């Protein structure tokens, strides 16, 4: 009784009906979260869906439905169904792939639909000898076995493609596993180690550094284990005013020592020790900052301007010695676009060679300063803070591997076939007769042509050898 009960539970979990039901439920319930906006404040739901609607949304967690217990349970049931279903069917497929195809009775083979008979003069012995070489020359590695009244050859290709559909099933499980491994919730609540996997962000003003970021879920602090400094932030625009790129210059420091300096952009993140920094937003600090670029070496230096002491002297190190720069005068002028004001300044700059340079400059407009030893680009503009999304997802390679496996599995399952050929050599009326028999689990029409060509090639070979 117990065994029977177990079997019926197993059969239910392995059943395709259950799979169809779960896929249907996943597909239809997923629609809800595209109509009900996700992760909005409670007032939003009351306003949009009314009091009753909001109560239903609240009861079923529809405001965050893809993380709700019932949706995760559906995904869990789907995984279980996939696992049991695959385990249930795999042994049969393995038997099918490993089957001893030379064991098949010749009478049974000769009844198969796809076959070509080649009359061949000469002895059975020569035909047998030729056949093995011929088949391997055509890429069919054949095994042979002597039967009562002849010799049977067998070769197959693509036996592994019968596993294709299971590769797809396993790939889904691997992707879901990757999602669990990379889940911040699992890291925090189950592993009790929020540093294992997280998603968060930090707003980092130019020239400032940080050792921690803030989790998106609950704004808790997550230590990075190293320090990141924002050297500068820059936006460029197209002529029509659309943003062209957002760039942040970042430096990674370990125990105060610079280990890595690079620029990140949207679509060009920085990954260090498994933690990835994405350019996600920016903020204007409403304070000026001076950007200085040595155009020979490419070295960028920035100096924040304190509005109380805007005429302070800033200094930096160059190869030949020290450089210095300051704002000597500043006055407000009407802005060119007619709204608000801009600032015009008189600048003073000196480095290790030559007399100081003095020149005018306006806010937001870069100028080129020519010095005896080099050229500088100087600009005074807003002091920005770069908005970084910071995440650590140790599961992402599982997900990617799963995706690659899925494509391989789909290709094998749909576009490749398990092709088998037998060649049976026997004697009829003193002459050798070879029967080529074929079988494929897909695209029989195409394989029929292959088999016909194979048979014809062998009879042609016979003609030429005569």
């Amino acid at each position, binding site marked *: 009784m117990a065994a029977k009960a177990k079997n019926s539970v197993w059969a239910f979990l392995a059943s395709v009906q259950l799979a169809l039901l779960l896929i249907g439920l996943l597909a239809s319930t*997923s629609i809800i979260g595209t109509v009900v906006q996700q992760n909005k404040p409670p007032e939003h739901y009351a306003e949009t869906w009314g009091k009753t609607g909001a109560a239903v949304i609240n009861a079923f967690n529809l405001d965050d439905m893809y993380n709700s217990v019932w949706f995760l349970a559906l995904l869990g049931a789907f995984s279980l169904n996939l696992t049991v279903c695959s385990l249930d069917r795999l042994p049969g497929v393995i038997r099918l792939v490993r089957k001893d195809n030379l064991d098949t009775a010749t009478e049974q083979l000769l009844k198969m639909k796809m076959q070509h008979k080649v009359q061949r003069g000469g002895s059975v012995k020569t035909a047998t000898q030729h056949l093995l070489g011929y088949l391997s020359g055509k890429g069919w590695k054949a095994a042979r076995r002597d039967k009562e009244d002849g010799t049977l050859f067998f070769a197959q290709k693509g036996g592994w493609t019968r596993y294709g559909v299971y590769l797809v099933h396993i790939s889904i499980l691997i992707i879901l596993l990757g999602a669990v491994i990379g889940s911040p919730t699992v890291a925090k609540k189950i592993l009790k180690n929020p540093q294992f996997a997280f998603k968060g962000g930090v707003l980092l003003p130019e020239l400032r550094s940080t050792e921690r970021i803030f989790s998106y879920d609950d704004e808790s602090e997550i230590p990075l284990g190293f320090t990141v400094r924002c050297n500068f932030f820059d936006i460029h625009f197209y002529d029509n005013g659309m943003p062209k790129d957002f760039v942040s210059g970042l430096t990674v420091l370990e125990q105060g020592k610079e280990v890595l300096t690079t620029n990140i952009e949207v*679509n060009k993140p920085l990954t260090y020790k498994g933690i990835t920094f994405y350019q996600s937003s920016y903020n204007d600090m409403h304070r000026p900052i001076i950007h200085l670029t040595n155009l020979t070496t490419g070295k960028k230096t920035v100096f924040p301007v304190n509005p109380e002491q805007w005429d302070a002297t800033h200094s930096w190190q160059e190869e030949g010695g020290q450089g210095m720069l300051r704002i000597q005068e500043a006055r407000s002028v009407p802005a060119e676009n007619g709204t608000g004001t801009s600032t015009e300044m008189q600048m003073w700059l000196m480095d290790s060679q030559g007399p100081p340079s003095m020149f005018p400059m306006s806010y937001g407009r870069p100028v080129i300063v020519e010095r005896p030893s080099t050229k500088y680009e100087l600009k005074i503009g807003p002091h920005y803070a770069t908005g970084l*999304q910071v*995440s650590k997802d140790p599961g992402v390679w599982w997900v990617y591997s799963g995706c690659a496996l899925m494509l391989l599995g789909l290709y094998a399952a749909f576009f490749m076939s398990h092709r088998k050929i037998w060649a049976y050599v026997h004697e009829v009326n003193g002459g050798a007769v070879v029967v080529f028999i074929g079988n494929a689990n897909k695209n029989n029409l195409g394989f029929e042509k292959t088999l016909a060509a194979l048979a014809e090639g062998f009879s042609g070979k016979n003609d030429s050898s005569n």
Partner: protein
Amino acid sequence: MNSSQLFGITTIAYLLSSVCYIGLFVFRNKKVGQVGLVLAVLGILAQTIGLGLRWQESYTLGIGHAPLTNMYESLLFFAWCAAIFYVLLEIKFKLPVIGAFAMPIPFITLAYTSVDKGLSRDISPLVPALQSNWLIAHVITCFIGYGAFAVAAGLGIMYLLKQFGHDRKFSADTLIGSLPELRTLDDVIHKTIVFGFMWLSAGIITGAVWANEAWGTYWSWDPKETWSIITWFVYALTLHARFTRGWNGSRIAWLAVIGFISVFFTYFGVNYLLAGLHSYGSN
């Protein structure tokens, strides 16, 4: 000649091609069907040159990106994929009657791009999020899938029509008689769906990889992503029902149509309908 003129020529070629195929369907005149094929191929050539020119125009504007970046360009590309997919299908299966149900798809799409004045045809520069090589891989894989699914839906409608005629015992001389055999249609529908499913999977995967590169999340359940997975589920369901439950015929034909409705919603509905809900909700 510029790209818009070429797209105009393409629209006319697809229209005439559709008319020829419908002529073949109605009058069973094989010659007309062959003209339909020639027109379809000419249309595809004109459109290919047009797309190439638009690509080049973007470089002369100093923007320089593949013409796959807004709704107008994606519709052009969808029409191109659907037309190419149909022509390859005809070459493979030699069933030109399908053209009567397939070629109107690229024609209607192109006609829509010239009628809808709200559709911006400007070649605009790429915002930072779109500046990625994954853009091309993602759009191409998705749209090959969409093109196949569109043709599968056309085939599904053919199947249902044919079956309707069968059930009413229409004689073979009527219009229904010139449609291919039910069994043949069933087979082509299935193969088309399988082909589309492979590319849709690749499209979702390239999209996920791209999202992870740009934002650090390969899946965030936004409406577009969710609808793409719903579509994927619908076709997965179709394939399983066929392989393991032996579903075929009209049930698969219906699923081919339902699947395409889901594709259509992923492509359009999410942009217009859900975006509408969104703006309504936040007002």
